[in-house]
């Protein structure tokens, strides 16, 4: 158990890196995903094509490949990030934005057509229909899938270990050669860090889901 007790500060900093990487990437993914979803449901064909192409490309490329591009391919185009951490934020954020976009879009599509028709029938304009009728219902449908995207993203942040981001997984790979006798404890330490993030997120998600559930 020495491996853990002697390196608690290393685990702690790895844990903080995992959290900050996930939060920053989550922020990027959510804002970009919202814009892309707006593009995809907009009446302007070029924008909805752009949204579709983005989503299909990023959803079908492994995150490892996206991250690899940020670190190895973009420098060939003279685009470099100031740190590996920042490259990670962009890789994780750009990849996850595609999933955020799909969750939001499916939420909008899940609102029954009658709702928007009724809104128009009582004379609401496009903005009012969206703001007062469609989005409040779509938002509720979207909570569970968005929560899943968040949890998946926290776990995906582990790929940073392969690209010089010292987060929780990287801590385990670093300690394993120094303390060969404590392998199980070392990996269990990192696993605990992730479970501390994913399990409460899952529980909170369940609570929010029940609170905002909409009866159809």
């Amino acid at each position, binding site marked *: 158990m020495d491996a853990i007790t002697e390196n608690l500060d290393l685990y702690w900093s790895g844990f903080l890196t995992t959290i900050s990487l996930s939060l920053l990437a989550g922020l990027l993914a959510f804002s970009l995903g919202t814009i892309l979803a707006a593009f995809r449901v907009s009446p*302007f064909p070029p924008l909805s094509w752009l949204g579709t192409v983005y989503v*299909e490309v990023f959803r079908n*490329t*492994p995150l490892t*490949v996206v991250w690899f591009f940020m670190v190895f391919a973009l420098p*060939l185009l003279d685009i470099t990030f100031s740190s590996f951490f920042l490259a990670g934020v962009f890789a994780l954020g750009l990849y996850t934005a595609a999933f955020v976009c799909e969750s939001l879009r499916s939420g*909008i599509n899940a*609102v029954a057509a009658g709702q928007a028709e009724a809104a128009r029938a009582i004379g609401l304009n496009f903005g009012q229909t969206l703001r007062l009728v469609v989005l409040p219902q779509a938002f509720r449908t979207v909570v569970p899938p968005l929560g899943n*995207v968040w949890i998946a993203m926290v776990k995906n942040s582990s790929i940073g270990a392969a690209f010089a981001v010292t987060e929780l997984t990287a801590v385990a790979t670093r300690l394993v050669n120094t303390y060969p006798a404590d392998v199980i404890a070392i990996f269990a330490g990192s*696993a605990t860090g992730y479970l501390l993030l994913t399990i409460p997120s899952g529980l909170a998600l369940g609570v929010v889901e029940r609170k905002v559930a909409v009866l159809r």
Partner: protein
Amino acid sequence: MSQESVLYDTLGPKGRRNVRIGTVIGVVFVVGIIAWVLVRLESTGQLEADRWAILFDPDSGVARSLGRALLNTLRAAFVAMAFSMVLGAFLAAGRLSDHAWVRRPVSVIVQFFRGIPLLLLIFFAFLGLPKLGINLDLFWSLVVGLTVYNMAVLAEIFRAGILSIDRGQSEAAYALGLRKSQVMRIVLVPQAVRRMLPAIVSQLVTLLKDTSLGFVIGYFELLRQGRSIVEFLGPRYGLQIYVAVAVMYIAVNLSLSLLARYLDIRTARNPKVVTDPYADELEPVVPLGRE
């Protein structure tokens, strides 16, 4: 597009004009992005023809070695798929057991492996197990990691599928005097499989994408092969090789995704599948699924 009818009314002359204006702005925006990318590529000399020709030149061997690497990727994916489907089915059966001493430990196993990152499991198989006296080669380290993670995810999909079948089905079967194993085999599983198929296929697509993590431990799959070609040929051909690798991944995954979508549509049309207004609930039961 179906969502248009939900959000927009049939447009009048003013609306059509607005859409035309918006479309023009959209075209300008998209063309602007494409132009910026092209200028960027041109200014760094990436568009030179000989840099791209290497991909199609049989003498360079690039195409051949990428093709072999794709086979390595598919081999790891298929072996892991087979193992995780079988083990996942056992775990799902365990989670649905009537005996608490089976159900509880199996639930803990499933929740644990679903809650931690796949890469941590692959590292454990690759770095951790040798320290415990179990030596796996690169292929099996990757396959063991992929299997352990995906069996847990698939177990949850299977369980959710069985639970989504209307309770009246199993009640009726029990009333006929069937035993629990018969109820499962004859009544529940055949109906659940149809309903689960899209979810299973999309999880298998995810598994295929995740074989790229083999890159991290040095298994010669597509990405690692691409990297080593670039190390051999020099950075001059870097971008071209990487783009080729990405395109191969997208092509394989897109065709599997299209298959999943086709199955989804076919299932929705199939009269044998009971149309259940709450069928969507299959998704939220799987809150830790990896995207």
